[in-house]
């Protein structure tokens, strides 16, 4: 006899097995575990959001919605020669957002310090993302100059957040120089290639005494999630959001992925067994 096909109706009419009364009494939903987390602490300033957002390359009118969907509290921007006809990006950033100026365009520590001081004069915050690059093909950060700039800026009272090549030794030197966080790249900036440097970032995370924020190369929410599962303290994204079809929606996707990855990290991920299955059903009482 051919068994009845499974239909929505047959599923609906199938009685549910009785609920176990002790573990989960009938009529009582299992409580949802709260994610117990500390705020992200950057130089004594605390943030609930672990998503730092670049401020654009898209329509200025989208910034507010994007920031809100991202749930972000920190937005980066760059400093350039002023054009009198240009709209100011500051007019489009919602109230209460911490501005994080970067030193892009700086080729050495002295230029980075000069840009940081000018940025502080504009926005009166002490946050600065140190970014020192020499060429435009790879835009790789110069760790040695970045360490020098970090030391100079930390002495001037800046909250220094250096963008760095993920060298664990340089990460420690940046800490010693007074960095409030380190920002290793996941892969080439703007490339959307993801967490190609994961093995070295893991070493940095394992040894860091300041927050580790993955910056550059994160191309999709799943990669941001993986970074957070690894124990990163925050993720910064820019191109991945700016180049999306629906920018505010992508911002929300990143927010959710970062929250999921953080919760997974706090939960404690299960062990990975290489080349060896672990039975998930009893291995006794077989019918043969």
């Amino acid at each position, binding site marked *: 006899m051919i068994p009845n096909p499974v239909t929505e109706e047959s599923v609906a009419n199938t009685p549910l097995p009785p609920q176990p009364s002790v573990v989960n009494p009938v009529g009582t939903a299992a409580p949802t575990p709260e994610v117990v987390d500390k705020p992200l602490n950057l130089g004594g300033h605390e943030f609930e959001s672990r998503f730092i957002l670049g401020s654009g390359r898209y329509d200025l009118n989208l910034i507010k919605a994007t920031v809100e969907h991202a749930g972000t509290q920190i937005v980066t921007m760059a400093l350039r020669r002023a054009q009198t006809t240009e709209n100011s990006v500051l007019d489009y950033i919602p109230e209460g957002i911490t501005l994080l100026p970067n030193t892009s365009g700086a080729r050495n520590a002295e230029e980075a310090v000069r840009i940081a001081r000018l940025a502080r004069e*504009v926005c009166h915050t002490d946050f600065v993302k140190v970014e020192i690059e020499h060429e435009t093909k790879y835009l790789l950060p110069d760790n040695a100059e970045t360490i020098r700039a970090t030391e100079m800026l930390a002495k001037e009272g800046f909250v220094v957040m250096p963008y760095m090549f993920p060298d664990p030794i340089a990460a420690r030197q940046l800490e010693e120089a007074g960095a409030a966080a380190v920002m290793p790249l996941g892969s080439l900036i703007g490339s959307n290639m993801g967490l190609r440097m994961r093995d070295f970032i893991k070493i940095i995370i394992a040894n860091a005494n300041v927050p580790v924020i993955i910056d550059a190369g994160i191309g999709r929410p799943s990669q941001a999630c993986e970074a957070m599962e690894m124990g990163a303290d925050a993720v910064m994204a820019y191109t991945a959001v700016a180049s999306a079809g629906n920018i505010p929606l992508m911002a929300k996707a990143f927010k959710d992925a970062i929250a999921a990855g953080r919760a997974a990290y706090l939960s404690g991920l299960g062990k990975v067994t290489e080349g060896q299955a672990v039975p998930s059903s009893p291995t006794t009482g077989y019918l043969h």
Partner: protein
Amino acid sequence: MQVNGEQVALAEPVSVADYLESHGYRAERVAVELDGAIIPRERRAETMLHDQAVMEIVQFVQGG
């Protein structure tokens, strides 16, 4: 004098504050560096430009 890398003729002595206003810059949105030193907002009115001055006027733009 030089402003943001461009040669600019200075007709008469003018302060940093007046220069910003007469050229349409939003004073509260820019930082000014004159001959390598930042001119804080409160000193723009009293700081005069001169023929050989090198001035940078900068502002924030979108960026990561």
